[in-house]
């Protein structure tokens, strides 16, 4: 049954990749990549149970954190053009 859930998650990741390649706007691509990252968290968790090593859950937790930060970073980059804008410099 873990294998069946894993196959479902893998199919979803494939669909998300197709949507990321096909998406007309940059927001469609960010949405698809964000969904791909969430499904990666699920895949790591299910793979850990499938292999009998649930210690993989630590990796899943770290990947969930990194995925959210990455999504927000790409959104900010697509909005402002850079990530490290210094607001104080605009006052001078």
């Amino acid at each position, binding site marked *: 049954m873990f294998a069946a859930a894993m196959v479902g998650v893998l199919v979803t990741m494939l669909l998300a990749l197709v949507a990321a390649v096909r998406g007309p706007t940059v927001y469609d691509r960010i*949405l698809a990549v964000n969904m791909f990252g969430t499904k990666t968290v699920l895949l790591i968790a*299910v793979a850990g149970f499938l292999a009998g090593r649930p210690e993989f859950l630590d990796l899943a937790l770290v990947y969930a954190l990194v995925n959210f930060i990455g*999504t927000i970073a790409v959104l900010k980059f697509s909005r402002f053009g850079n990530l490290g804008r210094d607001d104080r410099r605009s006052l001078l």
Partner: protein
Amino acid sequence: MSVALESASWIFLIAGAGFCVIGGIGLLRMPDFYARTHAAGVTDTMGAGLVLIGLMLQAPTALIGIKLVIILGFLWLVGPTAGHALFKAAYADGVKIHEGPDIAAQVAAEMTDETNTQSPDPEDGDAVPD
């Protein structure tokens, strides 16, 4: 492990995988970006929640169950937040909303056509066969 717990875990896992696949199909087939946000949100909350609850029912130790709860809470907190940020950024950038056919106007036009072309039925009792 009892059979009931294991079968409940299987049901949760299969339902979660099904929700994930349905959301992936919706991501490809929805007409505009905002509807696609909805399809991706289904997989982020319902699909991930069902799969992780299904794993929780088979957790060998309490620590692994707690880790699963932490992952699930974080995903439920972060998925809608990222979706909202994306939605707001796209709306501020002027991504067009898909407008389908105006069904209300079509129905109204059909109703007026029916009332105009509708002729009073001749009464059958008066029709005398020759």
